[in-house]
């Protein structure tokens, strides 16, 4: 029963994520694409929780759905696109060709995975150790052996912020 519920949850959130992503890449108005990205990020956060990464699930919602999407919306509002400024999209032939190429790319990854499954059987996840991906252990690792990475990420974000403020600031 536990396994069935996990399977149903995985399928539901996978469908949500893929559906949201599909609407992002095919939506006409950019605002609707950004809203659809929120849905997709929420689906990925739920998948992180299923994959024993509860801290990453929360971080996903906070970073992507909370900051990146808000940044997109602010940039969209700054741009203030009107309908005639949206521009045309690529031709139908080009879109079909690129869809075919992306399908082939996904197949290049998925076909060996499926063949390995047919040859070896599915790789079941090992039984979840309740402490395995917990936030306590994650925090311990971050602040003990990866403290440098943590600080450098802060420096990186500072550099990005300074660059963005300079790029997007008013030039008189």
């Amino acid at each position: 029963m536990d396994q069935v519920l996990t399977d149903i949850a995985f399928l539901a959130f996978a469908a949500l994520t893929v559906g949201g992503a599909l609407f992002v890449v095919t939506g006409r108005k950019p605002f609707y694409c950004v809203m659809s990205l929120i849905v997709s990020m929420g689906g990925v956060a739920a998948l992180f929780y299923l994959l024993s990464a509860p801290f990453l699930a929360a971080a996903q919602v906070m970073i992507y759905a909370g900051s990146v999407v808000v940044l997109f919306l602010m940039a969209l509002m700054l741009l203030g696109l009107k309908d005639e400024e949206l521009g045309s999209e690529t031709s139908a032939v080009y879109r079909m060709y690129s869809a075919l190429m992306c399908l082939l790319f996904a197949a290049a990854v998925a076909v060996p995975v499926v063949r390995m499954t047919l040859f070896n059987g599915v790789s079941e996840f090992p039984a979840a150790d309740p402490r395995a991906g917990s936030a306590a252990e994650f925090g311990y690792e971050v602040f003990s052996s990866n403290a440098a990475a943590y600080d450098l990420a802060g420096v990186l974000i500072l550099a990005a912020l300074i660059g963005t403020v300079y790029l997007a600031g008013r030039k008189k």
Partner: protein
Amino acid sequence: MIFNLQSCLILSAALFAIGAYGVIARRNMVVMLLSVEIMLNAANLALAAFAKFHGGALVSQAQILILMNMAIAAAEIAVGLGLLIAVFRNRKSVDSARLDLMKW
């Protein structure tokens, strides 16, 4: 039984392909940046799936790598949007086909 490593990898491949389609086939630069975000999330999902399957004692290290990837993605999006605003000021359009100054 549906929730196993192979399903997560196929989902990650599908998400990456959808993101790649968005970058290739869309001309609106905002949507292109959104598709790059989708691709980054696909990579994070694949890493999390492998961490759960093969992790053992290194699950936290993999999750730290994923967190660093998220931080890099956030920084990259900030810079990308700054660039987009600067481009929009000059070309008055977010259509990538209008960026043709270097075309012969």
